[in-house]
């Protein structure tokens, strides 16, 4: 029996294994492969997007670099221009204006000759300087007359005479500078003599005739003349004229290139500005034409541009020039290749392209000409143009960042994700990187969704399958158990039938053959036959009752029944049947037992079953006690034995049909497994209850409690 149980268990295990192999494993494998396939697909897509992104980034880089390259080659071209070699500043300015200033990518240009001050050909160039003593060195007689005029002006303070002499000297002076100087002297003396009108005229002549001339201290004469004219006009009360002249001076001041130093520029700017503002604020301001105001506003804007340019030049002077000077001092033979230089100043990158200027022999290096890249233009226009040329996938964002990762473009990436692609510029010039962000990656997102969907679907499926399989396995296990119980039942029932039949047959044969002659022996034979017949009858009755119960056809005939009499009868019947030594059966009645409405036959059958069980499981020499008592409400009939007992785990199951306790099975005492089921049914049909108490090895007690019907 135990082995059978083991086989049943193993069979279930096999079932579980089969399920595992046929359903669970393939499902798991399938899901793993599915998820992996999607992951591969995702990886492939990501790779593809990365490749596309990289191509785009490289395209952008190439676009930007080609622009820078164009500037570089232009620079390389002009560095060898004779104007640069010959230090012809006017020509240099023209050249720079034409070749460099036209390119919006170029911010400021810087020019540096060996052992000379740095110049900014687009903004600041030195005008031709007059030798300090040119007037004196030229003609001694002329010089004497100049001194005479100066004496008249400064010592005698005879301004009119001095003015006349200056005018005369103007016609005699040879150089343009000297002429301008003489004219200035005349105008100055006229101004001092309060002849403002004439002074203004002379100043105008200077301004228009000698725009490029400088004072001995290097100041532009034209500009100074205009400023003086403004003062004269103011003195003369001609505010309109003063404003107009001031505007001319303003225009002159903002012209490029300028020779004015930073301080001079600022001083003059404020002088001119004050003069114009004074007019505009004064009584006559209302009469000022709209054109005037418009031009003034335009010039003011130009002024701020100039200021910026000067600031940029100042920055270059401070940050880059020392480096250029160092390079220049170290340079030997002429190198035609330009070089690149970048400096980070206050978070802003200063990008400079520089080309060497050959000396007159063409073998050495005379200087450097450099251009600063206009970062704003590079970032805004060039980059957006490059972006326009590139086809980007949806959700791809291009961010240009410096090497530290700070974004340079205004569009600041909100995503903290790693860039899809990062590309650096060649030679780190500009020292930036192009980063492509994929926010959010649409294709990947869909793929992720799909993967998650697959994953959860498969997982759910597996869980459902596992649960279903578990249920099926359990049901099959249960079925198998029932089948086994049924076959056990059939074999035990047939054994139960066969044993008394064999016994009866053997005894009867001997009796019939006349082999038994001794009357005592014959009695013994008949007694055993009777006993076996009783057993068979009980068995058949049990089976019949059971099948009736199963079919729901069992009927009870209730009548007032004397339980004590029935119990006594049953005990006696068992005692009588006991041929040889068996357990002792005692019957005890405690108190008066009222009549119970019961089916007498069923009641005695139930009791017979209990006593039969007790006898079966109680060894000889031990006792069985059948007790009957009443508490006024119920009649309690109990059968207590000192047999093998019931295992605690099985106590609850003893009333189940076909159930036979393990302990009972070990005894090789066979039964149908129906007895207690029948007893329970009978008791419950009487409205009673049945209880069992048992201790393994010590015995069991079954109590039937019947209510006393009023």
């Amino acid at each position, binding site marked *: 029996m135990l082995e059978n149980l083991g086989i049943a268990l193993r069979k279930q295990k096999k079932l579980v294994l089969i399920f595992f192999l046929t359903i669970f494993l393939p499902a798991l494998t399938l899901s793993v492969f599915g998820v992996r396939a999607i992951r591969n697909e995702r990886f492939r897509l990501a790779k593809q997007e990365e490749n596309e992104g990289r191509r785009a980034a490289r395209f952008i880089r190439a676009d930007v670099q080609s622009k820078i390259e164009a500037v570089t080659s232009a620079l390389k071209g002009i560095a060898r221009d004779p104007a640069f070699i010959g230090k012809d500043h006017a020509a240099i300015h023209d050249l720079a204006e034409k070749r460099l200033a036209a390119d919006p990518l170029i911010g400021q240009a810087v020019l540096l000759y060996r052992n000379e001050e740095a110049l900014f050909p687009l903004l600041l160039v030195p005008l031709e300087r007059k030798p300090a003593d040119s007037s004196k060195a030229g003609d001694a007689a002329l010089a004497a007359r100049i001194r005479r005029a100066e004496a008249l002006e400064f010592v005698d303070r005879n301004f009119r005479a001095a003015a006349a002499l200056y005018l005369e000297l103007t016609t005699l002076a040879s150089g343009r500078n000297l002429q301008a100087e003489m004219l200035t002297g005349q105008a100055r003396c006229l101004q001092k003599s309060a002849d403002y009108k004439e002074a203004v005229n002379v100043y105008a002549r200077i301004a228009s005739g000698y725009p490029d001339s400088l004072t001995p201290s290097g100041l532009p004469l034209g500009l100074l003349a205009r400023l003086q004219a403004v003062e004269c006009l103011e003195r003369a009360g001609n505010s309109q004229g003063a404003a107009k002249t001031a505007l001319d001076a303003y225009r002159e001041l903002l012209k490029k290139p300028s020779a004015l130093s930073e301080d001079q520029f600022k001083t003059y700017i404020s002088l001119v500005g004050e003069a114009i503002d004074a007019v505009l604020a004064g009584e006559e301001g209302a009469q000022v034409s709209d054109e005037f105001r418009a031009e003034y506003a335009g010039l003011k804007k130009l002024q701020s541009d100039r200021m910026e340019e000067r600031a940029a030049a100042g920055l270059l002077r401070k940050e880059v020039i020392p480096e250029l000077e160092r390079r220049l001092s170290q340079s030997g033979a002429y190198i035609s290749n330009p070089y690149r230089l970048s400096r980070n100043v206050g978070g802003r990158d200063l990008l400079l392209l520089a080309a060497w200027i050959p000396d007159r022999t063409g073998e050495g290096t005379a200087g450097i000409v450099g251009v600063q890249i206009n970062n704003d233009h590079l970032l805004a226009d060039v980059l957006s143009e490059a972006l326009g040329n590139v086809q980007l996938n949806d959700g791809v964002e291009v961010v240009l960042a410096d090497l530290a990762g700070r974004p340079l473009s205004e569009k600041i990436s909100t995503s903290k994700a790693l860039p899809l692609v990062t590309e650096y510029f060649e030679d780190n010039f500009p020292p930036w990187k192009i980063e492509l962000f994929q926010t959010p990656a649409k294709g990947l997102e869909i793929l992720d969704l799909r993967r998650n969907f697959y994953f959860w679907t498969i997982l759910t499926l597996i869980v459902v399958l596992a649960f279903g399989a578990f249920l099926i396995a359990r049901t099959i296990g249960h079925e198998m158990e029932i089948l086994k119980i049924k076959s056990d039942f059939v074999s035990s029932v047939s054994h139960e039938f066969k044993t008394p039949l064999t016994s009866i047959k053997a005894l009867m*044969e001997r009796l019939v053959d006349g082999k038994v002659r001794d009357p005592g022996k014959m009695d013994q034979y008949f007694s055993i036959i009777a*006993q076996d017949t009783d057993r068979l009858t009980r068995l058949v009755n049990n089976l019949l009752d059971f099948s009736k119960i199963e079919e729901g056809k069992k009927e009870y005939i209730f009548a007032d029944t004397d339980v004590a009499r029935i119990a006594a009868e049953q005990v006696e019947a068992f005692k009588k049947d006991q041929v040889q030594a068996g357990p002792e059966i005692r019957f005890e009645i405690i108190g008066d037992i009222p009549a119970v409405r019961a089916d007498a036959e069923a009641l005695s059958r139930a009791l017979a079953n209990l006593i039969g069980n007790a006898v079966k499981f109680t060894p000889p020499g031990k006792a069985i006690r059948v007790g009957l008592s009443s508490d006024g409400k119920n009649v309690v009939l109990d059968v207590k034995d000192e047999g093998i007992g019931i295992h605690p785990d099985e106590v609850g199951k003893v009333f189940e049909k076909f159930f036979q306790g393990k302990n009972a099975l070990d*005894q*090789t005492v066979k039964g149908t497994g129906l007895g207690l089921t029948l007893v329970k049914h009978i008791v419950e049909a009487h409205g009673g209850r049945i209880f069992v108490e048992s201790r393994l090895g010590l015995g069991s007690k079954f109590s039937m409690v019947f209510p006393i019907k009023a």
Partner: protein
Amino acid sequence: MPKKILIVEDEPGIRLSISDELESVGFRVLTAENGEKGLAAAGREKPDLIILDLMLPVLDGTEVCKKLRMRGDRTP
């Protein structure tokens, strides 16, 4: 001296009929109603033959046989 036969059988009817039958043909028959008693009787009486039922209370036939053989008893 008649041969001694031990019958170990729990069913009284079968036990009785076999023992009577064998006695009537001249054997000395001993009986035991369970395996334990059968084992004890086999040791005590040294029967010439043991007729052993397999399904017995307390000790079943197979067990009895095993124990007998383990004791070195070669009784058929």
